């Protein structure tokens, strides 16, 4: 035992149930200490990836030819198109986006039921940006103790200078955050130049201003309050956890009874747990809670307390994992061992063999425990939606034909006794290349011919229609039928559009109306 290495921190878990202030009281500031360890390392990597995606994706180029933007990911509101690499989505194809949202939802269920609130702890923008803001804060103000000291110090020139630099840096990050957002909605290089030279649209500046304000406020000022008071996810995610979900757990079956003076306590023969009550886990917590109080709504499972505790345990020569990712089942089983199944006090000796190592009876997490009907079901639903989207995307039409019969008049009697019906024909060319399609009436409609207003010859059986790239073309078509060919008052027939080059085909079954009695 070398507990002289471990300094006890005077950390108070301001947001734990016992210390929490009422809503109308001023927020108690939290000064999270810098943690280091494998989870902190992992969080740095996740932060780099997520921020990298956010900032860099709009700058990726993707050649779509001369008739479409060359930005890989672009939400083109003005033209109502969404571009994602090789996929182009029209507004009526929003079902794919809806599918992605369904996948995101089920994916969140899947992740939560297996590894708990991993979304909150690692990838949620709030978490990532607060982390980023904390990096800046630490850079200018120092780590926990220095920051607390500075905060408590009276206002001085130095304090003012440090605070101004910190807030300005936060604002710069906030502006860059808001600034990156707008690049998803317009050609990034053009917009960047326009934005800087003051030529961008008002909405661009307004968006950046709003996102700057929210980023600065949420990331810099409100921090954990966003998660605790504003976000509905903690409530929803808590409901999705079960006893086999991994959560950040303080294993009090080996930690209690905690003691600050282990050697003295052992010398007197008292039984002591592994927890030396150094408060390292409290000091690093960005949410201001004490994980040793058990599962709490405020805990975002960022796992920094695991790093802090493992560090202390390592220095004490004890096993890592006093705080660890653990399932409720394992925890309960181990707790039962430590408490002799029913006693209310924990006896740490029960979980160890006489030589000091852990007893074999202890439950440990194994990856197999994640494989259970619930996770299979989630994964099945998640992948079913994914496969459906992929299939639908691969087989979707890129040429569409819609026909609208004139509402009034339903038909027109011509001077030679023939009957004419009017149609609004809409041809959608959903690829960014110009195309020529042949529009024709199906052969079964004998004696019928069509005339396109403003184009081509009158009374033809088929005609070429030039379609602009990525555009809808609306044409007015009159179909004329001889009275002999009309046996009833109405009949149906098809318009068929065929791409001259690729043979892609679209058809639409329309109705032809005629008067009941012909003179």
């Amino acid at each position, binding site marked *: 035992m070398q507990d002289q290495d471990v300094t006890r921190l005077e950390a108070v878990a301001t947001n734990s149930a016992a210390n929490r202030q*009422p*809503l*109308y009281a001023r927020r108690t500031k939290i000064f999270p200490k810098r943690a280091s360890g494998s989870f902190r390392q992992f969080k740095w990597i996740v932060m780099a990836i997520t921020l990298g995606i956010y900032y860099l994706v709009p700058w990726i180029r993707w050649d779509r030819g001369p008739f479409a933007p060359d930005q890989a990911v672009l939400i083109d509101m003005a033209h109502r198109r969404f571009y994602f690499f090789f996929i182009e989505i029209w507004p009526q194809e929003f079902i794919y986006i809806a599918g992605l949202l369904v996948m995101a939802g089920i994916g969140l269920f899947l992740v939560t039921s297996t590894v708990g609130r991993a979304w909150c702890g690692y990838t949620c923008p709030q978490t990532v940006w607060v982390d980023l803001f904390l990096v800046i804060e630490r850079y200018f103000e120092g780590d926990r103790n220095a920051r607390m000291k500075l905060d408590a110090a009276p206002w001085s020139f130095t304090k003012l200078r440090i605070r101004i630099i910190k807030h300005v840096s936060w604002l710069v990050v906030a502006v860059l955050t808001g600034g990156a957002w707008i690049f998803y909605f317009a050609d990034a290089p053009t917009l960047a130049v326009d934005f800087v030279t003051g030529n961008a649209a008002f909405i661009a500046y307004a968006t950046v201003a709003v996102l700057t304000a929210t980023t600065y406020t949420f990331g810099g000022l409100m921090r954990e309050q966003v998660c605790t008071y504003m976000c509905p996810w903690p409530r929803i995610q808590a409901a999705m956890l079960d006893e086999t979900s991994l959560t950040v757990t303080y294993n009090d079956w080996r930690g209690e009874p905690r003691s600050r003076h282990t050697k003295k306590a052992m010398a007197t023969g008292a039984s002591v747990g592994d927890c030396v009550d150094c408060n390292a886990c409290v000091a690093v917590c960005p949410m201001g809670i004490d994980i040793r109080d058990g599962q709490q709504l405020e805990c975002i499972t960022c796992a920094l307390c695991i790093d802090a505790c493992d560090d202390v345990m390592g220095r004490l020569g004890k096993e890592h994992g006093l705080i660890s990712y653990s399932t409720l089942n394992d925890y309960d089983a181990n707790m039962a061992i430590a408490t002799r199944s029913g006693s209310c006090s924990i006896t740490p000796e029960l979980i160890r063999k006489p030589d000091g190592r852990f007893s074999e009876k202890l439950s440990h997490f194994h990856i197999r425990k994640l494989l259970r009907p619930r996770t299979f079901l989630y994964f099945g639903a998640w992948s079913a939606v994914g496969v459906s989207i992929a299939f639908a995307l691969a087989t979707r039409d890129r040429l569409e034909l819609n026909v609208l019969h004139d509402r009034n*008049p339903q038909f*027109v*009697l*011509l001077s030679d006794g023939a009957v004419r019906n009017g149609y609004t024909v809409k041809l959608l060319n959903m690829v960014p290349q110009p195309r020529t399609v042949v529009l024709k009436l199906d052969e079964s409609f004998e004696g019928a011919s069509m005339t396109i207003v*403003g*184009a081509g010859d009158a009374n033809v059986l088929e005609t070429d229609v030039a379609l602009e790239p990525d555009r809808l073309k609306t044409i007015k078509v009159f179909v004329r039928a001889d009275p002999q060919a009309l046996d009833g008052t109405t009949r149906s027939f098809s318009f068929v559009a065929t791409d001259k080059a690729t043979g892609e085909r679209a058809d639409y079954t329309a109705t032809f109306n005629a008067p009941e009695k012909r*003179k």
Partner: protein
Amino acid sequence: MSEKHIDEVSGVKTTGHEWDGIRELDNPMPRWWIWTFYATIVWSLGYVIAYPAWPLLTSSTQGILGYSSRAEVRNDLKAADDSMGAYRLAIKDKSVADILADDQLRSVAVAAGGAAFKVNCVQCHGSGAAGSQGFPNLNDDDWLWGGKPDEIQHTIAHGIRFTKDDQTRDSLMPAFAEVLDGEQISQVSAFVASLSGPVRDTSMIEPGKTVFAENCVACHGDNAKGNRELGAPDLTDAIWLYGGSEQAIVAQVRAPRIGVMPAWNARLGETAIKELATFVHALGGGEK
């Protein structure tokens, strides 16, 4: 009941009101709520200064921004007009035939003409321009005064039998009840009806043809194909303004009903009339 009272459980002051032993805690408002409340007060002060707010006897305070929702509507309407300005100018400069040949202009003119039609024309010609008895169907290919673009434009501009306009389309079919006897009228009606369909008494066709040749060809032509100069309808086709039965033809020969259409030039102006002509021409029956 307003003495100070502290709730024992929570240690919070109550409002002092009591209902059957139940007291209301007097917790302070959450800070964010208070701040929001103060912010709305500050906002409203600015609003009252900047925008019309306080009602006076006959009007209201105007606010220093001079905002008015009527002015906003005026500006919006002007902006909408301005955005169509280039098209309007092009339509004014070009003939209806040229407008019809230009895809872009045609679609603009058809839309604008359609709107003008709904305001000015549907009362007689119907919302689908299909007319009714006595009011011609504008969708079909049968034209009384001509279906070419400039002919349609002229008809709309100057009207039909509209005495206040010098260039109006004008003609008058006499009442043949004063010229022919009942027998002759039945005969000529049977002949006219036979040109586009079967008749009850085929023996009347031949004498009717003679009556037609003596009285009607001047306007309706030797072959009864009509004369657009005079607005005399084609009697051989399937389209009838006042009905195509022998009975309806008899009635029309005896005492013709004559339609009148007002001239729209003064009211709508040249551009709108060109748009209307384009719209009517594009209904499907327009001639080249």
